């Protein structure tokens, strides 16, 4: 599954064609920041459903991937916080959508494990709480840890700043958040970016996400939030 050396630049609508009914989709972002807004909008427009959405939060009912939830396209959410999107709680509460909550540090570590070939990690977070229910608890050096398992997805939508034509990515501000780690944990990775520049124009010391993880690029659109993040 080697990737194209020169990354294709697709329209958001073309790119989201990789998402099929029933796909699992990772979406970067924390609150308003670092959401691949144009990709999410295209997925809302496509109407593809039955999705498993893996994202730190479900944004707001009318913002970003929160709209996927509100639009009924999601059968399951895996997240750390969904309190700002009233619709997520409601659908879960009404039994119309599954919801798996992870502590945020566990969430990101599970994705990292999924991307980096680890079978799991031992974290102290959640010991003695409902988080440990149904999970293996191991003792190391007299301290208890929960064994947390890897997370992967079929497709990842990430938001970066600059990309060179080989898909090497940099990030800007607090848009970084979960995007780099998600870039490693999906079979098909689409990066929404501010600009695409020539190979060699990003200092190799400054590359955060190596292009070998990226399948395709999409230019950020002029959507209200895309333009402002």
């Amino acid at each position: 599954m080697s990737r194209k050396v020169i990354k294709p630049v697709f329209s958001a609508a073309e790119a989201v064609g990789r998402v099929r009914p029933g796909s699992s989709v990772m979406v970067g972002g924390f609150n308003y920041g670092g959401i691949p807004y144009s990709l999410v909008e295209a997925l809302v427009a496509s109407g593809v459903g039955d999705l498993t959405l893996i994202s730190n939060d479900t944004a707001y009912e009318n913002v970003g991937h929160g709209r996927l939830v509100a639009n009924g396209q999601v059968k399951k959410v895996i997240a750390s916080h969904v309190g700002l999107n009233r619709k997520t709680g409601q659908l879960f509460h009404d039994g119309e959508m599954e919801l798996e909550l992870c502590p945020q540090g566990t969430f990101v570590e599970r994705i990292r494990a999924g991307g980096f070939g680890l079978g799991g990690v031992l974290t102290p977070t959640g010991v003695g709480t409902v988080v440990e229910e149904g999970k293996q608890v191991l003792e190391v050096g007299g301290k208890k840890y929960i064994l947390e398992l890897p997370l992967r997805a079929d497709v990842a939508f990430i938001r970066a700043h600059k990309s060179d034509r080989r898909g090497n990515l940099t990030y800007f501000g607090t848009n970084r958040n979960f995007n780099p780690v998600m870039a490693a944990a999906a079979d098909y990775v689409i990066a929404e970016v501010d600009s695409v520049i020539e190979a060699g124009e990003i200092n190799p010391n400054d590359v955060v996400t190596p292009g070998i993880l990226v399948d395709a690029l999409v230019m950020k659109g002029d959507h209200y939030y895309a333009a402002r993040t």
Partner: protein
Amino acid sequence: MLPELNEDLVRSRVARRVAKEFGDGDVVNLGIGIPTLVSDYIPENIRVIFQTENGVIGAGPAPEKPDLRFIGAGGRHLTLLPGSALISSDLSFGLIRGGHVDATVLGALEVNQEGDLANWMVPGKMVPGMGGAMDLVTGARHVIIAMTHTTKKGGAKILKKCTLPLTAKGVVGLIVTEYAVFRIREGKMELVEIAPDVTLEDLKAVTEAEYTVADPLPIMQGTEEE
């Protein structure tokens, strides 16, 4: 009788007292609500490094012109101070879990005398999710609860045993309310400061937990500045 304090005074009193906990160079995470105010009261000679779990080390106050590319927990707008760093969530939570954050300040629904904390869900209500709170209280070296002493209906929040689902067990080191400051060490709670307008008896009436009383018992720091 307990004093009737207006909400602004409650919040500023708690925030002002929490701000005195920090030393120069401390790395601190502030939760939403009262904790947010703490940054307003840091003494001039103390440089606290504010960290937000979504990836800022060295956050400064809100800018005049909001920029969605620089936000903190809860979507708050922030600026970057000179010498700040922007990092990914995996590094951010690595630092949090690894004990590289000196203190986290959070609100609570309930705390108990052994330092157990419940602040993330109420059964039967909509579940917001724990976000980063569980990692923060598990990893930060010092967990400070900044909250009103009682519920809106006057019920105790500082309990013998928490009744709500826990955020973590045995993690709380300090509780600051508008009436008092309690320290918890090795599973034992001690009243270490009391507000000038509160008596020991009144405090006991709104505090279910069992605690010892420091002797001498100082007046709550910062109240003289009110």
